[in-house]
């Protein structure tokens, strides 16, 4: 949309590019902030984190054998990428996570909305889902390996077990939470239930849904490491686990750090995309 001249006076939100860092707003109770101020805070938080870490090792609070210096971890990471072909493991883990995640999403979204739309569907599916989602996924791993072997399908199965049942309930809740008036408006504009679902319910719940998908994607990273530790010859989890055998703490931490960075980056990408798509929020 082109910036029309009248919009300036109406839209009161601060432009994120404002150079003013607005510290007063950051400190005020429920105050406002700017993107640059938030970024600065985030950078400070990370610097502080590494500083504390460094101090803990430097003062010998934790022996270096158990907690290496941050720069040793970075060096280990560099070495893993340079000589151990770590990038391949990273790629494999990302592929597994996204494959399973997408499978969960394309199943959970329609089923969840369906559950929210018809009481009968909700009444049938909800108790079962509620039961299964309380089963501890790690306890299911042996069973899933017996069923699916140690190939890719067992990893997908673990991730799917760990996310689908939670997600489907979250989606059902999202779809139920949209105002009843929206549905009734749909009817009085002549829409059929399927059209209301597509054009009103789905559109209305989308921002909440994306938030729930972000959370779920985070869980996927927990389950993939579990799955790769237990039964895999590749992936970040496998690398972390095999380094344990040689007590290579820097490499283990490098692996963990990699997961954190991937999580942070993908989450930020989704948030930026969401902000683009949901410009009205």
């Amino acid at each position, binding site marked *: 949309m082109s910036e029309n001249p009248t919009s300036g006076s109406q839209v009161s939100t601060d432009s994120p590019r404002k150079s003013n860092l607005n510290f007063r707003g950051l400190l005020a109770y429920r105050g406002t902030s700017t993107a640059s101020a938030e970024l600065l805070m985030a950078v400070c938080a990370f610097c502080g984190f590494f500083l504390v870490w460094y101090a803990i090792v430097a003062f010998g609070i934790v022996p270096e054998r158990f907690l290496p210096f941050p720069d040793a971890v970075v060096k280990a990471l560099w070495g893993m990428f340079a000589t151990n072909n770590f990038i391949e493991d990273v790629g494999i883990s990302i592929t597994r996570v996204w494959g399973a995640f997408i499978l969960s999403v394309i199943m959970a979204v329609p089923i969840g909305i369906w559950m929210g739309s018809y009481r009968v569907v909700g009444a049938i599916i909800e108790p079962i889902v509620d039961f299964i989602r309380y089963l501890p996924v790690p306890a299911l791993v042996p069973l899933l390996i017996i069923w699916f072997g140690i190939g890719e399908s067992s990893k997908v199965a673990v991730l799917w077990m760990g996310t689908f049942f939670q997600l489907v309930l979250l989606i059902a809740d999202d779809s139920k939470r949209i105002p009843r008036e929206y549905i009734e408006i749909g*009817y*009085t504009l002549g829409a059929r239930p399927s059209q209301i679902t597509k054009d009103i319910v789905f559109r209305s719940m989308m921002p909440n849904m994306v938030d729930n998908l972000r959370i779920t994607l985070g869980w996927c990273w927990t389950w993939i490491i579990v799955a790769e530790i237990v039964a895999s010859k590749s992936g970040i989890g496998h690398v972390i686990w095999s380094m344990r055998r040689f007590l290579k703490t820097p490499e283990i931490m490098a692996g963990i750090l990699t997961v954190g960075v991937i999580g942070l980056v993908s989450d930020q990408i989704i948030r930026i995309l969401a902000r683009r798509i949901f410009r009205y929020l």
Partner: protein
Amino acid sequence: MSDTAPFVRVSGVSKIFDGDRAHGSIHVIDNVSMDIGTGEFVVYLGPSGCGKTTLMRIVGGLETATDGIVDLAGERVTGPDRHKGMVFQAYTSFPWLTVYENILFGTKYRTDINDTEKAEVSRHYLDLVGLGEFSEFFVNRISGGMRQRVAIARTLAAGPDILLMDEPFGALDAQTREFLQVQLLEISRIEKKAVIFVTHDVEEAVFLADRIFIFSARPATIVEEVPVKDTIPGRRTLETKETEEFFHLRNHVRNVMLAQTKAMEMIDVPTGDAE
């Protein structure tokens, strides 16, 4: 309009909401009948909780009557459709759409016109409610009064035969309210559509209505039918509110309302302390 057949015919409508364990069943409407003419502006007035919304929703097909029938343009009302347009008190314009897109949404499910006509119709109603320069704004960037105008335009764009409005200006400040009342009268004069308008506000009722139905406390029955148009004929402007006829009529309606509200208080306090 002196049509022989009424446009809307409500005959013997009663409504009882089935209770559950916590709440007993509630008798909300008791044997209400009324005829509404083509293009007539009808206002429902009554004490809070008496069943005005419920009756309006029954006319709109969003609620089914326990007893009695509603006919619209000679056809039995069995459910909601685009011939019965609704405007709610809560803001129902969609936040993910712009002002124009919201209005265009009103035409989305019409099969009687093509896409070009849909755009024309939407433009027409956009201008009619005076939001032309805000067409590209998302609705959460505009004021509450504007949002209600969007909702009205969207409903009109669907091409309804009757407008059902449930306290649409209830959440707005006095000035905005008055402004929208005048605008709504203009719109209904131009569009010649029947309107059922629910409100608490006696002044609003007298100002807008061709005819007011005053309901009793629950279960709602018609206690009085006030033919406002007979007393205040012709076009209404804000000056109308200064006239003696308006003043008298408003006082009369207020007194009838007061009596009903009192009656309701006595029902609601069965083991009254002072009464």
